[in-house]
């Protein structure tokens, strides 16, 4: 399923991207390109990637997310992955796919909270 429409929205100081249901490799690559372009244009504090409709997470997608998150960090921002489905989480764990140190949030709402707060709530020991 090729979806060429990856729209990156700017919400206050944050970039918001909603990933379509079954992204193929092309779509995933376009996602990264669009994010980088928007990063340059808006210089936001962070990126929220909404994957709440994504049902499959392959290694290419996972790797691209990690890479993108690192690039965003290099440009001074933070990335949060929002809305991962339980089935995707289980598969990712069992396949050993990590998203690097990328932050995660249950919902887009919380993701925005995370990014707009000066110190992340979830710091813990």
């Amino acid at each position, binding site marked *: 399923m090729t979806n060429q429409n990856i729209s990156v929205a700017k919400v206050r100081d944050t970039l918001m991207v909603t990933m379509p249901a079954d992204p193929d490799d092309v779509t995933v690559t376009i996602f990264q390109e669009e994010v980088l372009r928007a990063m340059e244009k808006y210089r936001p504090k962070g990126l929220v990637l909404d994957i709440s409709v994504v049902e499959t997470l392959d290694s290419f997608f996972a790797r691209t997310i990690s890479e993108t998150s690192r690039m965003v960090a290099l440009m001074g921002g933070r990335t949060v*992955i*929002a*809305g*991962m*489905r*339980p*089935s*995707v*989480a*289980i598969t*990712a*764990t*069992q396949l050993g796919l*990590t*998203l690097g140190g990328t*932050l*995660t*949030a*249950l*919902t887009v709402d*919380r*993701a925005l909270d995370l990014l707009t707060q000066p110190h992340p*709530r*979830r710091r*813990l*020991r």
Partner: protein
Amino acid sequence: MRKQAEESTRTEEISRRGEPEEALEGCSGGYHSGTSIKNFTEEGKFMANKRKLSRAKAGKEIEGLDTQTFLAAIVESSDDAIYGKTLEGAILSWNHGAERMYGYSAEEIVGRPVSVLVPPTSADEVPQILERVKRGERVDHFETARVRKDGQLIDVSLTVSPIRDASGKIIGASTTAREITEQKRLREALTVRAKEILDVSTPVLQVWEGVVVAPFIGTLDTQRAQQFMERLLDKIVATNSSVALLDVTGVPAIDTRTAQHLIETITSVRLLGAQAVLTGVRPAIAQTLAHLGINLADVVTRSSLAAGLRVALDVLHLKISSQDDEA
């Protein structure tokens, strides 16, 4: 007439007593266990006495019975249904066990095609089985359904073997059928019961807004672990929780596999965006985990569920205050 091993033991014992070591001849059909030598004793036809056995000369007499009659009697006395058929499927012989299992007497059914026993939905089975037998193959423990004379469907386990003549040519097929309706029913009941136990023993409870607790009871095998993980993650999403307390107070022993499952669960919870806390880690568990070299460095752990709850409240920026304070 059981397995080879038993027969050779008998042969050895006989030869130790200095008697001729002739064993009973085997049969080239597909016979299974179920024969009861006791039946013979009761009818006085054969004495299950090793010394008498030893007097048998190969292929000749056993206490007045010739081997052929003796073998036929074994078939007759079997609880299993044993019947022979032609390579076209016409029934040639039908033992007492078959009469009881299927409800047809030998007179009624000999000569008729074996397909009368097959329910219409499985009609293809007979030609397929006969094809394999013609090639010299044995169909082993094939579970299927058959229909009795009164129309009742029964679950059976069939073994069909080729019958060969003296030259080795395949001249027919012999079937042994065992009814497994009860066995199957029990197996299914067991599966249902096992699932019920799984459901009951892996509850995930919301203990406060934003906090879920998953108390482990007993050991965690792979199936339970999978089920548990799915249930926990679904609950986290459904309750929009920030913290999941995984309580292992009720886990008696923790081995590498269980520890692995726990770590997988914690990682999945994190991927979802919630915080996982391992609670109820008692000295014994802590020791085992340390010995196993399991790295829980980036996992928050506490020795009791209460302590874990404190962590959860902290994450949510909540605190519990006494009602007296608000006077």
